[in-house]
């Protein structure tokens, strides 16, 4: 690990000011000299591995704004402060009641110990676990732009079949983000250019030719909150996560589903897919294919086919197309059968 300066800014504006002082204009948050740290479960790991090399860490845990640590439930929805821990949100009674998909996505993520440490903002910004990204001796366009992608023809069992490019096929591994994108969440951020609201679907960027650019955030922008709009039928929602190891592991495939049903007919469906795509993945074509249809195995399979129509399998991850479809079919049918 490289030596670094550690600071504990007192409030958001102080943190933004320091970040902005050490950032240049086109700096990516993940490549900036000064970087924010919350739970540290992702960033500290990558610093030890030499993957992330900030020379200044701005610890957000002492920021004085209390909203950062609160979950607020209103008629308009739920607002999660950025520093709320995964475990707190997962165990929150109203979250569980109103949006089971959110509680599930958090409960099925990581381990109890990590959930106690990890913040919600850190969670949505977690970086890929691509094995070739994690270890600095491999060629990796995301870690070292232009160096190539060792995973493309290598051991790519964990890698993405949706949203990939010729430069990078790394999966976005987070679970919570799938629930958020399905529920049309909005991210609040504050930076030197002011405060703004970012639709969750715009937060992450597909790799394209620039896989090292991962989000829409500037290096001095702090996520302050995540807002999930009210959804009366959000109770009929779940997160299904398929993984190699039952106790804890990243998803091989997952599905976040919320359904508005009229009997067995779908009025509206919300679908997001995890473990299979380079970014949090809203499956809009699958949603559309279900609209107005009776939800049964046949229509669920048609939706799954639509969701993976553009999939690009590689050598070791080809199974994710089939697995992803089956995961979605199962999730749709289980959501339909929920007693709400």
């Amino acid at each position, binding site marked *: 690990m490289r030596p670094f300066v550690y600071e504990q800014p007192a409030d958001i504006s102080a943190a933004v000011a320091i970040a902005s002082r050490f950032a240049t204009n086109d700096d990516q948050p993940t490549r900036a000299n000064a970087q924010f740290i919350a739970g540290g479960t992702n960033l500290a790991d990558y610093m030890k591995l030499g993957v992330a090399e900030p020379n200044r860490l701005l610890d957000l845990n002492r920021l004085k704004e209390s909203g950062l640590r609160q979950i607020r439930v209103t008629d308009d929805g739920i607002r999660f402060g950025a520093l709320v821990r995964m475990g707190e949100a997962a165990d929150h009674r109203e979250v569980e009641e109103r949006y089971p998909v959110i509680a599930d996505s958090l409960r099925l993520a990581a381990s109890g110990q990590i959930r106690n440490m990890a913040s919600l903002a850190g969670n949505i910004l977690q970086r890929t676990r691509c094995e070739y990204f994690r270890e600095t001796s491999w060629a990796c366009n995301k870690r070292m732009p232009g160096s190539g992608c060792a995973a493309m023809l290598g*051991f790519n069992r964990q890698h993405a079949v949706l949203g990939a490019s010729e430069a990078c096929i790394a999966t976005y591994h987070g679970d919570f983000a799938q629930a958020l994108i399905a529920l049309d969440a909005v991210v609040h951020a504050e930076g030197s250019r002011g405060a703004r609201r970012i639709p969750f679907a715009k937060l992450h960027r597909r790799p394209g030719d620039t896989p090292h650019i991962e989000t829409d955030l500037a290096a001095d922008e702090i996520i302050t909150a995540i807002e999930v709009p009210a959804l009366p039928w959000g109770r009929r929602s779940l997160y299904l996560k*398929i993984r190699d*190891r039952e106790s804890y592991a990243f998803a091989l495939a997952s599905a976040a589903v919320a359904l508005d049903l009229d009997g067995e007919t779908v009025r509206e469906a919300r679908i997001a897919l995890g473990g299979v795509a380079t970014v949090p993945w809203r499956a809009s074509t699958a949603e559309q294919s279900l609209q107005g249809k009776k939800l049964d195995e046949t229509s669920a399979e048609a939706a799954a086919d639509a969701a993976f129509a553009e999939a690009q399998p590689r050598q070791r991850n080809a199974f994710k197309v089939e697995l992803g479809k089956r995961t979605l079919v*199962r999730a749709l049918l289980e959501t339909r059968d929920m007693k709400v």
Partner: protein
Amino acid sequence: MDAAAPRPKENQGEPLPRVDARLKVTGQAHYPADLPTANIAYGALATSSIAKGKVTKLRLDDARAVPGLLDIVTYGDMDKVDKPKFGNTGATSIGPLHDRTIFHDGQIIALAVAETFEAAEEAAQLIRAEYDEEKPTATFDSPGTATIPAAGKSPLFKEDVKAGDFDAAYADAAVKIDQRYSTPTQHHNPIELFSTTAFWEGEQLTVHEPSQNVTGWKVELARQLKIDPGKVRIVSPFIGGAFGSKGPMTPRTAIVAVAAKRLGRPVRCVTSRMQAFGTQTYRAETRHHIRIGAGKDGRITAFAHEGWEVTSRPDAYVVGGTSATGRMYDYGSVLTHVSLVQADRNTPGYMRSPPETPYVYALENAMDEMAVALGMDPVEFRRINEPKAEPIGKKPFSSRSLTQCYDQAADAFGWVRRDPKVGAMRDGDWLVGMGCATAIYPTAVAPCAARVRLTVDGDVRLQCGSHEIGTGVRTVAGQMASERLGVSIERISVEMGDSSLPPAPVSGGSISTASVCSAVLKACDAIRAKLFAAASAEGGPLAGSHNEEFELAGGKIVANSGASAKVEDVLKAMQVGAIEEYAEFAPKGATPEALKKLYAGTPEFHGGDQDEDSVKYAFGAEFVEVRINRYTREIRVPRIVGAFAAGRIMNTRTARSQLMGGMIWGIGQALHEATEVDRRYARYVNRDLQDYLVPVNADIKDLQVILVPEVDHAVNPAGVKGLGELGNVGTAAAVANAVYHATGTRIRDLPIRIEQLLV
């Protein structure tokens, strides 16, 4: 009694809690990298990022500029010491800093030493190598492999066993199978990281390092450093998981010792989890070709097992599990052949039941296929083929309780409820499957020394250079002394894990309990003899009772007449404060050199298939239930039952714990464990516990261990069969067989993963 402490049955010892349990759960047990050492400097390794070629240039300037850097040990700095040797004490013959040739991925290219761990790590990461790179050979089927016969390449694997005329018998068989199986690369990944701490006091070198073989390492390290073994001490009081990985010494030990000498200061180097994949040993991938022929009655007439195992270019590490699979059942005829496949890889090594895990996996998967082909119940099929004598040399088994194991495990598991039809058992959306397999492990024993002292205060001090690798050997050795000397376990202190203690063999091959307990037994019996003689001598407290038998209990010598005397009084009468005995145990059949070899760190193993009179094995039967989701096909193991017979059980708690750990490991081997090799570069890809999955507590639901009583006096004086490596043999096959039962898909290549079942 709770499940963790099974009630002892016949020939089974009390489930005493581990003598070091409190130390371990309160964090007071000091592992080698925790042992306090003053004025320590920290070392960090730099390793190669290619698998084959030469280091043409090392750029050290950036590393040297790191504040706090003290030294870099690299090419040229090891020239005055000898290269490592490959064998039971040495992991590899590759002396990474003796030669700029790169033989494998992750080979040590330098050791950076600094004032702090962080500075050493930073410096090591800044060391840049330039290479003259060649295209490496990764594994089976890669261009450039060389295949050679394994027989004779290792003293433990002298020949390919055979019996009768396989070809004729197979040709005539009414029912047959012909299949291929494989097991992946696996790394031990003990939670305690690998580490070396070395310091010199004048000419005396002390090394703190987790080790399963302190005596062997002392001798081998002295040889490399060209000093007297008497000047080297290896200290390893606790080991946080070993599984064979801490059996052979790796080149790092001498490198750190040299660094400590150059600096004149203690140096500690803890290897990172990622680096351990290349700098330590591992279980290399294996392939198997099995043919079985049988009559319609289910009696096997022909069995052939060919195996292929990957090894490194310079070292012929042999797994060779056909000696066990070839003796498992009453085959009629046997044909085996094992080949080594050399590739540009680090040298593999022992990993918990090295030969049996992969080879018995293949056999037991094939046995299930054969039972299916015969339309026979898999338990019944095995019962029909129980041998009276082993098929190769026609020697009897010293004891063999496999049938009892099957009976008891099947009963506890509820095997009768299994519907033999494939795919017939369901629970909602979950397909249910049940499978079983046999576990076998050779019962070996080696020479061992121990020192036992009984004091006038009634305290016992037991010293033996064996190793507490988590098995509970400290506890069972203490229990043996407690039994023989009639002293409660609280009064006994057990010292192990130090090469200055009486030598014990490597803690491998499941020999420790048998060997250590036999030596402790001998020392205790010598103490008893002295006490009894003194007590019954003229003027002694029990004078005149020469012809009586004595026992020791509760601090007293008790004659069978009922007369008794306090041990304390006998010692006083002897005018001594303590009796101390140093015993050297050598097993039956030991050569005249046996004890000398023990001190040289290269002990002889006896037992298994090596003895003249009989073959000696421990057996078990494992039953597994799997559940597989109808849509998404993830595999869960909600239930597993194993019944094992292993001669005298010293302590039912520690025995159960070993077997339980083995079975859990077996589940991991079935479903998770695999090191992925990038075939283009011959490099390991998933070098951490994020991607190298093993089961954790939360994955294990209902697990039952049954200890089947068995008495066997032929194996060793203690009557003990090792069981540390028995539990994970067969488990993976039982899982594969259950998966077949649930789905009709036969998985022959481990690990069993979702993608294989999505058909």
